[in-house]
């Protein structure tokens, strides 16, 4: 069940976030319960002047890989700056590239994202861009050297599930890099659905963080992702649009034909 992005191998296909939790200790407990090995954190929330940052310290202690994100950046220029800052401050060359100039729906800007991705890849970053579920854009990002793509299932934080399912299927079919479904996953069943489609991983934050019991919900997501992946690997039974009637209407033809032959 393991999979690889760039030089890292993961046994958990559930990635999680650090935003929206009521407190850092609950965040840590939920992350540990989820079994996740890659945790995204917003550079804008890290206080680089504090050595014991509330969010950063427990994550370092928990031993998970950090995936700094550029959330809050509205342009390629700002995102590149944040990525460089993250590399220097956190000692990682991995970055989740997020550029959303639209503060209402937080829709990612495809043009600025492609521009920033190209630049960051040149600078040696492992770039995981958050994008709309746009198959062509995902191929373009793969071509400039991104090590994975992170298309959205629905608007961030909406918990609406895989509203972009048709396009996710195309992206997964065409990708030569891992596809991580990000945003919109609001229930374990959504995560399982993404895994059944063949996504390599999912990223879940809001659905866990704002749940009444984040630790329990984290476990539920862990199991859903495992079940979904297992189902994908086992191969889902084919669905049919045609009815397979138990009393076929055309069976009499076989009888007539056998009589006439006699």
């Amino acid at each position: 069940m393991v999979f690889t992005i760039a030089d890292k191998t993961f046994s958990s296909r559930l990635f999680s976030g650090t935003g929206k939790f009521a407190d850092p200790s609950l965040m840590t407990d939920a992350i540990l319960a989820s079994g996740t090995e890659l945790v995204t954190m917003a550079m804008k929330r890290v206080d680089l002047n504090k050595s014991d940052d509330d969010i950063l310290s427990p994550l370092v202690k928990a031993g998970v890989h950090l995936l700094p994100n550029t959330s809050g950046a509205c342009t390629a220029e700002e995102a590149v700056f944040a990525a460089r800052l993250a590399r220097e401050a956190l000692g990682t060359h991995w970055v989740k590239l997020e550029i959303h100039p639209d503060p209402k729906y937080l829709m990612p800007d495809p043009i600025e994202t492609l521009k920033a991705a190209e630049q960051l890849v040149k600078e040696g970053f492992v770039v995981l861009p958050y994008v709309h579920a746009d198959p062509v854009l995902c191929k373009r990002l793969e071509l400039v050297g991104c090590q994975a793509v992170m298309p959205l299932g629905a608007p961030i934080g909406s918990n609406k599930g895989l509203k972009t399912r048709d396009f996710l299927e195309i992206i997964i079919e065409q990708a030569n890099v891992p596809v991580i479904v990000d945003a919109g996953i609001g229930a374990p069943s959504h995560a399982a659905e993404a895994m059944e489609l063949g996504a390599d991983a999912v990223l879940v934050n809001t659905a866990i963080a704002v749940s009444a019991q984040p630790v329990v919900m984290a476990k539920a997501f862990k199991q859903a992702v495992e079940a979904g992946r297992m189902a994908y690997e086992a191969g889902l039974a084919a669905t049919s649009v045609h009815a397979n009637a138990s009393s076929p209407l055309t069976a009499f033809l076989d009888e007539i034909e056998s009589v006439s032959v006699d």
Partner: protein
Amino acid sequence: MTGSEASFAQHLSGYHWDDIKLSFGAKTAADVERALSRSANQTRLDLNDFMALISPAAEPYLEQMAQRSLQLTQQRFGKTIQLYVPLYLSNLCSNICTYCGFSMHNAIRRKTLDMVELDAEIAAIKQLGFDHILLVTGESERKVGMEYFRQAVPKIRENFSHVSMEVQPLSTQEYQELKDMGVDSILVYQETYSRQTYAEHHLKGKKNDFDWRLATPERLGQVGMNKVGIGALIGLDDWRVDCFMVAAHLQYLEKRFWQTRYSISFPRLRPCTGGLEPKSVMTDRQLVQLICAYRMFNPELELSLSTRESAAFRDHALPLGITSMSAYSRTQPGGYAEAEPALEQFSISDERHPKYVAQAIVERGYQPVWTDWQPAYGRSAIE
């Protein structure tokens, strides 16, 4: 000029104050239930729904509104509250406004922080743990205008990751300059959207120009200011009509300047030097109703609660839709480094030290957020 290019002043002329006031009385339980059901179905509410939610007909539905508002706020913002602190640069003012302690005709000692005093204020505020700051300037364009800001803002910029400003309405070019210096957001409240009432309360000075103030958010949108704060001073005129106008203003701005974030505050008139009796009193219940209605109308909107409100109210109201709060506000220039209460703009109600405000936030099951902005964001020139 096409419809989409029309200014908000033109939109405003299409609204008739008295008609809107009457419309509130005509809202029924069915209107409120429709708005609640649209919100539950994740349908975006329109101005008509908003009107129903702040009408008297919605009062019996307050608990339902609060539950929905809490849900929407947690979904969008999580269980977090952003903390900020105001820094009063000056209490000089060249306006006469009937409701403000800084009004030119009030005999108070005037003070503008010099750069040494500003350093002391910055150091005192940093000690309190804040990283987001709101600069408040009074309205004295000649003495506390761009020349002063060119000295003060870069100094503040170096010390705080997010800089907001409450400053007199400026020109587009001046806003561009402030943005280039590192100001992330500008707050400018219309006070009231009634032209007549506005004229009654703004007796002298440039603030007397209703249209110049009304078009301020548009000038800010034109320069791409990251965040714009709008609002009405609750109590100058009928609060329901004013708050409806704020919602209409917000809707107009969001459509036109889609890359800008918006915040709303709802300051209620407080006792101050030369105090004014509010024409329209908003109760605590009505303030909760308003907060919930704004949240249901616009789930992405940042809603801010200042220390004008009591500690008890703030603690209980914070889960209902609020996303940011000030704490330990000193409303007089120099108030953090050296307390001189005689100069304050208005009396605050929540006097708690930030660590106790943060503690109260934690006790409610929320995380106080001190830093939520990357200093490079929103800068036109990044080194």
